[in-house]
Structures are given as structure tokens and as C-alpha cells.
């Protein structure tokens, strides 16, 4: 438990990992929406810049403090880390994806009140969940087993697609931003998996076990 607590709040990591987890998602989204919508999102950003401080950042802070970092303690700090020791990083990410994906069944059903709609929505989001688990696993390993960095990325992603998040600042339909972010996450996850040859930033097995001790 002490080891898990230490990894959950490990904040002394190179600054670049804070940049990757917090700055890369909104910047990549901005580039993607500019490619798709032209300059309209930039104009909306210039017009609605104050919403960054009144809507987007508060949403991000709430996600960090009460939601996603806590979520990642269980899914990354505990489940992914243990599975990784036994099965390697790629299989661990695949297994964690299934478990994490199933975890969303009750809340999805409550939102849709329809088994068919639940199945459709979850089916659509299976690949993005896999992409996000690959990215989060890579961030966790690369930042020296820091659950905090993984949680920050998850919080930023959720703050971006939230109706009161970056969606409102850019004045774009939430569903379209959700689809764009899903595509970005799937692509980034695939690039990371291929680029790291399935290691997801994990150093030699003796070093990773030492990180967890």
C-alpha cells in the first residue's frame, strides 16, 4: 500500500511529462479542429478566451482532484502495474482496457436506459479506450511509474470533451469533439505501441520491479 501511495503521488518527474500529459492533448486537438474546421475554432477561442479560466480550468481542476487521478490509482497504479509485471506492458494494457471498458457499463446504461444503445456506445468506444490505455501505460512507465502523470492526462482528456470544458471554449458540437479526440487517442495509442515495440516505455524488468518496491 505504501508503494502504491508513493507511486500515486509521484510528482518529481521531468517537466516534459507534465507537458505531454497536460499540454499535448489540447494542442493536438486544436491542430485537428483547425484542419477540419479552418479558422473558426481559433476565432471562437479568441472570442471566448475568458471561458478558459471560468469553465475549462475549473473543470480540469475538479477532474484532477475528485475524479481521474483517483481512478488511475486503481486502474493504472494497481491493475495495470500488476498485470504488467506478469504479462508484459502490451498485454497488460489490453487486459486493463477490457476491465476498464466493462467498468463503464452501469453508468452508460443509466445514461441511455437502453441495452442496445449501451452496447452500441460501448462498442464504439472500445478502440478509444484501448488507445487511452496504451497512452496512459506509456506515460506511467516513462515518467518512472507515476500514477499522477497518468491521471493528469486522463483528467485533461475528460476536461477537453466535457460540455463545459474546451468544447465550450471552441464553440464546437460536443459529439464531434468527442469523435475527434477518440480518433486522436486511437492514432496516438497505435503510434506509441508500434514506436515502443510494445514496451510502452517500460525499462528492463528488473528496473520496473525496483520502481514498485
Amino acid at each position, binding site marked *: 500500500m505504501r508503494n502504491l501511495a508513493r507511486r500515486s503521488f509521484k510528482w518529481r518527474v521531468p517537466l516534459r511529462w507534465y507537458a505531454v500529459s497536460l499540454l499535448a492533448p489540447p494542442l493536438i486537438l486544436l491542430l485537428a479542429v483547425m484542419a477540419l474546421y479552418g479558422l473558426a475554432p481559433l476565432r471562437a477561442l479568441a472570442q471566448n478566451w475568458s471561458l478558459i479560466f471560468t469553465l475549462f480550468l475549473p473543470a480540469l481542476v475538479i477532474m484532477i482532484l475528485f475524479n481521474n487521478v483517483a481512478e488511475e490509482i*486503481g486502474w493504472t497504479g*494497481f*491493475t495495470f502495474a*500488476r*498485470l504488467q509485471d506478469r504479462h508484459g506492458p502490451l498485454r497488460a494494457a489490453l487486459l486493463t482496457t477490457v*476491465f476498464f471498458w*466493462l*467498468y463503464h457499463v*452501469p*453508468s452508460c*446504461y*443509466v445514461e441511455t436506459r437502453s441495452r442496445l444503445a449501451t452496447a452500441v456506445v460501448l462498442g464504439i468506444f472500445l478502440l478509444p479506450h484501448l488507445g487511452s490505455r496504451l497512452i496512459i501505460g506509456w506515460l506511467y512507465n516513462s515518467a518512472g511509474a507515476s500514477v499522477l502523470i497518468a491521471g493528469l492526462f486522463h483528467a485533461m482528456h475528460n476536461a477537453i470533451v466535457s460540455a463545459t470544458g474546451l468544447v465550450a471554449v471552441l464553440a464546437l458540437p460536443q459529439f464531434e469533439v468527442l469523435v475527434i479526440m477518440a480518433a486522436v487517442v486511437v492514432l496516438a495509442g497505435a503510434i506509441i505501441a508500434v514506436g515502443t515495440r510494445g514496451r510502452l516505455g517500460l525499462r528492463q524488468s528488473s528496473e520496473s520491479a525496483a520502481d514498485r518496491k
Partner: protein
Amino acid sequence: MNVHLGMFIRALRSWIIQHPIISFLILAYATTAALAFVPEALTELGLLPGGATPHGVLENVAGSAVPLS
């Protein structure tokens, strides 16, 4: 009775230690299902006969019968 309960708890603890991930998953899924479905189910009509709701039953059982017993 206490001996059996103690044995059960020891066996459960042993099982959790041997299967930490499954234990976590059971806990996580049970919690999300409870949070998602129990509040809805408590006031859902049609789950119990005669127009009763689980909330109503709990209210009578836990609110009236248990304190009186």
C-alpha cells in the same frame, strides 16, 4: 457461530491476498453498479407487487420495524 465467521473471514482474506486483481474488479464493479442502479431501483415502481417500492419497504422495515424490535 463466531468460529465459523472467523474462519470465513480468514478464508476470504486469504482469497483476496491470492487474487488481488479480481478482488479489486469485484469491488469496483459492485460499487459502480450499486451507485448506478440502487438509487434508481429504490423508487422504481413495478419491482415489487402492489405498487410497493424498495424505498417504501426499506422505510417501513428499517424505519419502523427495526427500531421497534
